[in-house]
């Protein structure tokens, strides 16, 4: 197990290095930060002086080496727009995104498990047909359209729920402004989290249903039935447990996708999280923040995947044994 872990971690570090090169090379084409930092009537000489001062005239490799050196020490540079360390900006935006992803995940889990199992057990019932049909529709509508529709119906037309923002926040511990503990904050969470889960929920329903169906055909389920176990126990303990393995794998990968989809959801709902911050940083050519965010998200991805790999190794020893050869 130890060797397996070491191997995975070394791989992860290599991936991080590649991500930083990629992120850094994209930065060159995002735009010119100096333009965004100065008024349009500022002379080229002044602009050049500023560019020199910020080290933007240095060769690519010099800039990259400087970035990596600082990044290893935990310094991802200063955001041009926020005029603060990029890491500080990203972390201050993280709670918003994490709370949104958290609530959306709960919605996904709470709905996908029972619906998925039900649809697998009773594939011909009209209810599971409706659910399956709806899930096709759900997975095909882009998340920003879902979001705008939700705003239009529930905020503009009916006036039931707020259209944008996070509402009233309370600092639950230093640096974490939470909307989960106030009524207003929770009201603000409803629409964005539904919009965000609209992509994942159908996927998970279908995944659980498919896996479950396969497992229900397996010999040991027939054996369990033959033994006369209660149906409930067969479904939840014997069958469902075995569908979990692929669901965990996909879940780990999809968590990353979910973070990507927060960009759209957050933009539409003006949710002040990392996603909208990232889009804004591109629009403003705040390249230092763009790169810092890419490296940060890359880091999170790599850590999540490594951890999922390691858990996988624990749950299913065959993975690490196969790897040892």
């Amino acid at each position, binding site marked *: 197990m130890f060797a397996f872990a070491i191997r995975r971690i070394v791989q992860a570090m290599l991936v991080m290095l590649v991500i930083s090169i990629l992120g850094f090379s994209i930065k060159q084409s995002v735009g010119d930060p100096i333009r965004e930092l100065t*008024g349009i009537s500022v002379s*080229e000489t002044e602009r050049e002086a500023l560019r020199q001062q910020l080290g933007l005239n240095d060769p690519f490799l010099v800039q990259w080496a400087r970035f990596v050196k600082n990044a290893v020490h935990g310094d991802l540079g200063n955001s041009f727009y926020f005029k603060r360390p990029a890491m500080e900006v990203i972390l201050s935006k993280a709670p918003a995104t994490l709370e949104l992803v958290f609530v959306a995940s709960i919605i996904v889990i709470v709905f996908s498990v029972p619906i998925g199992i039900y649809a697998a057990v009773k594939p011909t019932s009209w209810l599971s047909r409706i659910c399956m049909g709806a899930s096709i529709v759900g997975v095909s509508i882009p998340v920003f359209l879902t979001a705008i529709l939700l705003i239009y119906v529930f*905020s503009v037309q009916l006036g039931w729920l707020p259209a944008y923002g996070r509402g009233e926040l309370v600092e639950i511990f230093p640096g974490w402004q939470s909307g989960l503990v106030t009524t207003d904050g929770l009201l603000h969470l409803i629409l964005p989290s539904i919009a965000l889960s609209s992509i994942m929920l159908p996927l998970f329903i279908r995944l659980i249903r498919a896996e479950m169906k396969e497992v229900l055909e397996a010999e040991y389920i027939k054996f369990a039935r033959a033994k006369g176990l209660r149906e409930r126990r067969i479904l939840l303990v014997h069958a469902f447990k075995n569908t979990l393995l692929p669901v965990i794998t996909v879940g780990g990968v999809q968590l990353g996708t979910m973070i990507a989809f927060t960009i759209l959801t957050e933009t539409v709902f003006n949710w002040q999280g990392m996603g909208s911050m990232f889009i*804004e940083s591109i629009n403003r050519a705040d390249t230092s923040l763009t790169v810092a965010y890419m490296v940060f998200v890359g880091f999170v991805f790599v850590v999540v995947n490594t951890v999922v790999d390691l858990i996988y190794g624990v749950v299913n020893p065959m993975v690490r044994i196969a790897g040892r050869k």
Partner: protein
Amino acid sequence: MRRFPLLLLAAMLLAVSPAMAAPKVLRLALDADPVSMDPHVQLSGGMLQYSHLVFDPLVRWTQDMQFEPRLAEKWERIDDLTMRFHLRHGVKFHSGNELTAEDVVWTLNRLLRSTDFKGLFDGFSAKAVDKYTVDISTREPYGLLLNMATYIFPMDSKFYTGTDEKGKPKDAIVKTDWSFANEHESGTGPFTVALREPGQKWILKRFADYWDKNSGNIDEIILTPIPEDATRVAALLAGDVDFISPVPPQDYDRIDNAKDAKLITMDGTRVITLQANMKRRPEFQDVRVRTALNLAINNEGIVKRIMKGRAKAAGQNSPEGYAGHNPALTPRYDLEKAKALMKEAGYEKGFTVSMIAPNNRYVNDEKIAEAVVGMLAKIGIKVELKTMPKAQYWDQFDAQVADIQMIGWHSDTEDSANFFEYLNMCPNKETGKGQYNSANYCNPKVDELTMAANKETDLEKRAKMLQEVETILYNDAAFIPLHWQMLSWACSPKLKNADKIVNVMNFPYFGDLIME
């Protein structure tokens, strides 16, 4: 149905905040929040809007483009170079210090150090005559001294003097890092910054000692940046905010028809133009070809179809109300004549050119560019168009990568000469004139008249000169004017005088706003 949840929300808000004589809170949503608390860090519309909230200028523009006394009660010209300003007595900064002539001198000196403002204030100097009198002079006679005084927002020199907790001078102007002035303010304006979370939320509180007791009644402003157009409009229509700016043109009708929202529009002063590069294309050196470009493009059509009537077709740089505006120079559109001119110039078969335009800088910029492509095709000019986000556009524009380039311009001085200096004068790296003249049009007469106009302090004579420049540019078809963008705001009807506080500079004077 609609009212119930609002009542619920109101009840909840009341439960949270201790019940006082309900403070007037303005919930304001803009496309972006100011980038700093230091008014000198960047010259941009957003920062000037901020300056009017937290600081006060010496004088300011009224809605009909007159000067209105603010911190300067009156002023007089004492010679060709100097204007004397008499400051209002007893004006307090947010820190409690009193405004004196020294603060004005200090502020002007700081402007001269600011990357963004030093160009505008080149040659300016200030001298305190006594505690409440200050002389502002220019190196050469300058007819726009008073226009520039609208950009002088006195800062609290005592407050910004010394070193901060990091050992740096408090008056440093820093664009990309922490600085005292980026995070603290002490102005004389109607509001103080109570809370600032960049890109997220600002809370501005009414300054109790504000000198102008006859201004508006807003106690608190909650400013939220909402970059997404659709979300900003939805927030207003849902009653979550009270005032939004800008309003996307596709939603004008929707807001006009909505019961709980009011649309305010005003003819703007930003002109959208195209420049045909004569250095890259010898064809454009022929005035007949340039005129043909002007004749082939249907400005009125673009305004009607693409801008939905919410713009004004332009035949020159200067909008109405500017000194250089010449009413005779109307948009020209005559396809037959354009074809004839092309034939006369020997380009009957036409030619192929490249063109670039931004796609998120001006209202409908990309669609306008596409329309131009179609219109020029009719006189045989095949255009290869490339559009890009503004973050990438200006480098390309400067490098003059295409034969036709789009640029919009708003005059920082609210005066015609500014258009000519940046867009039409001969490009000159040393003087910085013609910085955005990618047409490379160069006419010594234009340069001469513009520079002479700037030195002319007789405003009537000056206007004549500027109008002559517009006429020359028109006859030379030096550039292709398209239209002046309209400005737009939308608000809840409970804001009583919202249409009175807005202006063509797009600096709404929220200090004067009255809420029911």
